[in-house]
């Protein structure tokens, strides 16, 4: 236990030191160079604003988290289904794959106005943007997982005359899980970005709002310190999402998918 705690301290110490150093330099620079707070607020200003608007930041972060998580879950489910269709029917894959790449290449900024026209502003549109942004890695990873297989394992299943259904449920689907986990890690971070970008365009209005809306609002009013605290909340949310999904994924991998040693 003590060893574990000291390992934690050892891994946390360098980034923490860096953080404090940067904060100190930042504070020093704003004080010495006399930079106006609306251009670059010092860390103390940011902390003060964050505390003053704590309740609003928390509710905004919560709302963005709901949108990001919903978008992520949708892309996890739909991405796996599309990957499954791609792996089972090559014709579906060859005809649809170019359009799947479209998801990856289209600037979300360009289609956001369309989304608002079709779905209006509000949570549903924000979730949709988060979903679109995080879908592609899920599709590619699920497809790869379902089509990349150990040849000897496939031979083994053939040798015992396994049906297509048996090969799918007992081999292909479980073997795809590590790939899906890798895709989910990428998607989890993207879904937070998607939710915030979505809120830039399709935020909810003055009563309930997420971090993206708060960022546009505070930048418009030159409340730069408040803006900084909203950005920090966005970063924290991304980290928490990624960390949570990674932790769940790694637990699954450790339990069921540790590589065999061949020696």
């Amino acid at each position, binding site marked *: 236990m003590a060893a574990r705690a000291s390992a934690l301290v050892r891994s946390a110490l360098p980034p923490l030191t860096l953080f404090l150093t940067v904060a100190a330099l930042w504070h020093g620079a704003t004080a010495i160079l006399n930079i106006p707070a609306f251009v670059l607020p010092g860390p103390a200003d940011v902390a003060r604003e964050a505390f003053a608007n704590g309740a609003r930041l928390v509710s905004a972060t919560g709302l963005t988290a709901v949108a990001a998580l919903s978008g992520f879950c949708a892309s996890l489910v739909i991405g796996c289904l599309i990957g499954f269709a791609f792996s089972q029917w090559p014709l579906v894959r060859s005809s649809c794959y170019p359009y799947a790449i479209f998801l990856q290449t289209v600037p979300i900024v360009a289609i956001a106005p369309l989304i608002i026209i079709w779905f209006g502003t509000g949570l549903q549109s924000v979730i949709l943007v988060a979903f679109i942004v995080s879908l592609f890695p899920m599709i590619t990873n699920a497809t790869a997982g379902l089509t990349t297989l150990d040849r*000897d*394992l496939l031979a*083994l299943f053939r040798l*015992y005359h396994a049906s297509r259904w048996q090969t799918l449920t*007992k081999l292909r689907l479980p073997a795809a*899980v590590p790939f899906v986990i890798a895709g989910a890690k990428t998607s989890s971070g993207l879904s937070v970005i998607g939710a915030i970008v979505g809120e830039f365009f399709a935020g909810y209005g003055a009563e309930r709002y997420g971090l993206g809306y708060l960022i546009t609002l505070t930048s418009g009013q030159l409340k730069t310190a408040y803006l900084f605290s909203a950005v920090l909340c966005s970063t924290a949310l991304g980290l928490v999402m990624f960390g949570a999904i990674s932790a769940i994924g790694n637990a699954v991998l450790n339990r*069921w998918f*540790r590589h*065999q040693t061949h020696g």
Partner: protein
Amino acid sequence: MTTRRPAPSSLRSLGDGLTGSPALVAEGVGLTYAGGIEALRNVDLTVADGQFVSIVGPSGCGKSTFLKAVAGLIPITHGTLTLRGDSDRRADVAFVFQSPTLLTWRTVLGNVELPNELRGGGRSTARSHARELLALVGLADFADRFPSELSGGMQMRVSLARALMTDPRIMLLDEPFGALDDLTRQRLNEDLHRIWLRDRWTGLFVTHNVSEAVYLSDRVVVMSSRPGQIVADVPIELSIPRTPDHRSDPGFAAYVREIGARLREEV
């Protein structure tokens, strides 16, 4: 599906396997891949029921390809392959691959039960049969572990137990112990030999380790480099059962030297 056969040891005393119908007859077997690479040419091999035959040869000579062709995993392009009097008799065949090829998400017991599941056999008898086989390979206490918790040698034992699950009459083993250290390999050789003595299935064992081949086999055949052809067929007339003492027997050493020399001509 999993009922035990009558003890087969009475079926064959040493050497008389040649009188029954052979387990495997390969006649003029050739295999050329679509790309034009000729892997096997004119392979003739007859293996009597219950015989244990090793195939040695330089790497890439096609010995693994031959084994996979026997299993029906790769179609041959020339000649005929007959298993137990039937050209398409895969039901009696089991295959042990170079790597353990275990499903990492299943327990050891779950892996051993897999062949039975795929063939739709009964569950309850399968479970006790799988446990028996795990005991046979010395892993009775590891049934509920995951493969990742086992050493390479133990994983190979699981792979062996899995192959035995369907009570095969022909065991095809494709360099199963190639990745193991010498001591572990010798231990597994001894266990494999013991299991063969118990069940007397027909064994076809691919290896590039001559000493291992001599230890386990009734016959050792030497395959040439690609395209693979059989260039020597050496009966091993050492007493059975083989024991670790055989390894220091002068006769054993003579076989290893003879086959090793024959093999070097092919490399």
